[in-house]
Structure formats: C-alpha cells, structure tokens
C-alpha cells in the first residue's frame, strides 16, 4: 500500500554513495598512442599495447594526468605528490591483459568535496578519492556469441568515489549534475552519459533513522542517465525497506539496472572476482607530481560553477535559480555574460538565455555555438529592446529569423520591418484618433470601468500595426484618458 510504504519510508534513512567513471578528453589513450575517439570501426583504434599482445608495456599519457589533476583541484582534493598504479586482476573477455591498470592504495587525489543543492537544502558531499585507470573494451552480444571490440580498451578514465553522504535520489541527481559540470568546466571530460563517457554505479543501503551503523549495501550498475539513477535509487530504497519491514535481511549483491523494465535485477555472472589481488604495477614508475606542476594547473583553471553562481547572485543580482540554470554548462554562462556585457540590465540577458536561447538549443539538439546567433548579435538585439527600438515580441521573431538565416540583428529587424515606433508624437496622434472614435467607451472608462483600458491599448496597437512601443502607448493613453 502506498501510504504504508510512505509511512515505513519515514522511519528509514537512505545511505547512498556514488562511483562515477568519466572518460578523460585526451587525444590518445592512457598507455598507448591509439586515438581516443568514437565512431571508428571495430578494432580500428587498437594496437598491440591496448589489446595486450605478449611483451607490450604501458607508458603514461601526460595530458591524462593533467586533466585528472584539474578535476581533483576543482573538487577540492589533495593531490598526492606520489601516486602508484596498481594491477586489478579479474577475467573478462573485454579485459585483454586479464588485469586492469588502476590505482589502489596510493591514488592521485584524496578527499575533496562537491557542493550541491537539493530539495531547497545546500549540502556538501565529501569525496573519498579520485584516481586514474584504463577502460576495458566492449562486447556486443548476438545469438550464441559475443563480439569483442578493443577500441575502448585503454581509454583513460577518472574514477570519482564519494563518501556515502548522499541521502536521497534527488541529492544523487544534484551530485551527478555538479560532477558533470565540474568535469566539463575543467575540460577534463565531455561527461555525456548518453554517449557512455560518464558512467555511474550506485551503492545503496538503508538504516533506521537515528541508527549510526550502516546497513548492508547493494551496488547498482549499468545506469546511463541521471533520470535512471534517480529511479534506480528510489526503486532500490523501496525494495530494501520492504524487505526489512517484512523481517528479512538485505543480501550484499550487485544489481544491473534494466532500463526497459525500469527495475533492478541481481547479476547472475560469477565472472566478477571479489578478490582483485591488487599489487603495484611493476611496469610503471610511481607518478610524481611537483608542486609547481599542480600550481600551474591550478592557475589555469577556469572559473568553476560554484564561484560563478556566487558571482551571478552577488554581483549581477540574479536569483539562485537563475544562476543555477546559467551555470549548468560553461558555454551557457560564457554566452550569457557576453550578451549581458552590452546591456544595462543583466536580468534581460538572463531571461533571454534561459528562455529563447536554451529552447532553441534543446529543440535543435545542436551545440550552442551552432544553434543560435553569436553573443554579440544577441546582445545587439536585446540592446534594441532595452532602448525601445523594438518590442520584446518582435525580438522573439527576429531571434528565430536570426537563428535560421545567420544574419545580424540590425539586418533582420530592418528586413522584417520590426522596428518599433517610439515616436511619442505619432503614438499621441494614434491615441487621439482612437479616443475620438470611441467617445462613448471613453466616457464609460472615465466613469469607472477600468477594464476598458485594455481595449484602448489594443486598439492603438492595432492602428499602429502592432509596432508601437507598448510602454509608451500605456503611458500616453493613461495620461490622455485620465485627463
């Protein structure tokens, strides 16, 4: 029963930790000079090293380290002066060496935190660590066989492990969004879950409220969208509460998320060993990172989402909500600021970006730079609105035309005849005409029927072909009518 479940849920607290893997945006793979890119045919971005021929050896990609450090700094981690790669052994057909080169006892980044806002509450989610490792290949399943492609084998990853500080599906989603933003702002990763370069495993347990001890956790894998992460968590929390309420015990299992049925099911595979037999990778020297290198990376970091949000609220007067939307993607914030630079009121730019710009971006599915006019042109258009040269509605029309044609604002406004009449004399004349034509209504209005004002405004606008500056029409009409 839904109400029973809700009541039971009140008595329990969800304890959630996330393990996120993100592909690093390098040119080449982590340990060899194969291309790190999508879309190649099977086993085209492969060499003896990443397909583990006998006798091959790994050599570490410097840029991968730099990107990982950027992310570590963005997440307030301590960067280890010396970190050690380790072999993590298990058998799986897409793991060509029979071990993955990862990090174990001495990771690159330790500690750290990410700030999120969910359900109106701001919280800090602590990180355990961030380390570097290589990805495995991919399997495609057909009837009776599986086909193995090693294009993805050896692609560099960062693994970001959170403390089990997350308490709800909504918080998990907020955490993922913030991580994604950090990865993109720093350029460390494109972090697109739909494309598989951001993956998330979730550890979920529940415990009675007030109890300190952790319950048994289950791990959920194969989540490739934030929506699914939320659903899977909600589903699993409910499942565990039901079991506990019925007097049962939670088994420590790994579950796979089934995106079609939208439910979890236990993994049947025994191909995952529990004992990975970690030991330091003898083929790689310890990774030594100097304070100078870390500092040079730190000073080159762009403004990060949290700092940008603060600045938008404090210096530009935006609301927290507006700041959150505009900082989800770095390009959006960059665009907004460029547009706002030429305007008197940043809010104008904010509203415009949040409504018109993002709508076009979402509808066309194109990247910002290709979907909408340049920030300069958009800024020029909005400046016209601020100056009263065009109305807001006209601007919306102009904007769509600019998106289609790529022509500058001034040209479009001229071509479509969108210039707004702000000539007070002309408006006054039109008002006088309307008043003269509708003297009886004027009388009724002056006698108290305030609602008729709208009629007059509409009539003046119509008479002027819709191009009168509405503010001025309102002002002048009011003045004349209230005489």
């Amino acid at each position, binding site marked *: 029963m839904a109400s029973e479940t809700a009541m039971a849920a009140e008595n329990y607290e969800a304890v959630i930790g996330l393990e996120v893997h993100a592909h690093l945006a390098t040119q080449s793979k982590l340990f060899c000079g194969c291309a790190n890119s999508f879309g190649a045919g099977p086993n085209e971005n492969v060499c003896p090293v990443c397909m583990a021929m006998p006798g091959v050896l790994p050599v570490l990609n410097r840029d991968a380290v730099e990107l990982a450090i950027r992310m570590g700094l963005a997440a307030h981690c301590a960067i280890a002066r010396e970190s050690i790669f380790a072999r993590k052994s298990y058998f799986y057909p897409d793991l060509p060496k029979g071990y993955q080169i990862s990090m174990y006892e001495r990771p690159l980044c330790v500690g750290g935190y990410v700030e999120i806002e969910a359900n109106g509450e701001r919280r800090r989610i602590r990180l355990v660590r961030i380390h570097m490792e290589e990805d495995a290949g991919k399997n495609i399943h057909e009837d*009776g066989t599986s086909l*193995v492609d*090693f294009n993805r084998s050896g692609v560099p990853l960062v693994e970001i492990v959170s403390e089990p500080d997350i308490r709800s599906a909504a918080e998990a989603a907020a955490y993922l969004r913030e991580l994604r933003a950090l990865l993109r702002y720093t350029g460390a990763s494109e972090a697109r879950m739909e494309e598989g370069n951001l993956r998330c495993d979730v550890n979920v347990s529940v415990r009675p409220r007030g109890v300190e001890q952790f319950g048994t956790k289950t791990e959920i894998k194969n989540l490739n969208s934030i929506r699914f992460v939320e659903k899977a968590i909600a589903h699993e929390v409910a499942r565990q509460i039901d079991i506990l309420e019925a007097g049962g015990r939670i088994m420590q299992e790994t579950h796979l998320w089934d995106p079609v049925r939208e439910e979890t099911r236990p993994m049947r595979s025994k191909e995952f060993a529990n004992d990975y037999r970690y030991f330091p990778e003898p083929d790689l020297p310890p990774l030594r990172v100097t304070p100078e290198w870390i500092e040079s990376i730190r000073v080159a970091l762009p403004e990060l989402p949290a700092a940008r949000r603060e600045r938008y609220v404090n210096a530009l007067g935006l609301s927290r909500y507006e700041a959150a939307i505009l900082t989800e993607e770095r390009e959006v914030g960059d665009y907004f600021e460029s547009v706002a630079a030429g305007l008197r009121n940043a809010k104008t730019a904010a509203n415009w970006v949040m409504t018109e710009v993002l709508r076009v971006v979402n509808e066309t599915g194109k990247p910002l730079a290709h979907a909408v006019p340049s920030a300069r042109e958009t800024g020029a258009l909005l400046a016209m609105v601020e100056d009263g040269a065009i109305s807001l509605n006209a601007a919306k029309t102009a904007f769509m035309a600019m998106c289609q044609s790529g022509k500058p604002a001034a040209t479009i406004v001229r071509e479509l005849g969108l210039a707004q009449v702000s000539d007070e004399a002309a408006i006054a004349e039109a008002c006088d005409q309307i008043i003269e034509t509708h003297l009886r209504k004027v009388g009724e209005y002056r006698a108290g029927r305030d609602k008729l004002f709208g009629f007059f405004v509409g009539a003046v606008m119509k008479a002027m072909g819709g191009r009168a500056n509405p503010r001025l029409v309102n002002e002048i009409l009011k003045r004349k009518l209230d005489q």
Partner: protein
Amino acid sequence: MQEDLSAVLAYVDKLNQLPTDDLEPTAQVGEAGTPLREDRITNQPETEALLANAPDRQGGFFRVPRIID
C-alpha cells in the same frame, strides 16, 4: 602438484623469520626513463594485422562464446 606447492610454500615461510616491520618494500629497482609521454596519436589502424592471430573472428571483431551477465 599439490605436494610440490606445499613444499614450496613451506620453504617460502622462512621469510617470516626476518623482522621487517620498519622496512620500506622494494617494488621496483633500476631507473625509469620515460615516466610520461606526450598526448599524441601515433598509431594507425592496423585491424587486419592485429586480428591475424585471432583464433575466432567475425569481420573486425574477436568472437567468443556468448557472455552472460
């Protein structure tokens, strides 16, 4: 095989005679020459050469029995 392994393990146990608590483990000896490499694509596709030794293949893929999750 079992006996041989037991004999070796018994022999190897002599390491426990040595006190080693304060010692650093030695994981590597020698000097590393190339700790980091430049991020450049230096490999060309060579699918055929790499698949030439495959015991079972299908097109550009290696083929294995159906993997069950």
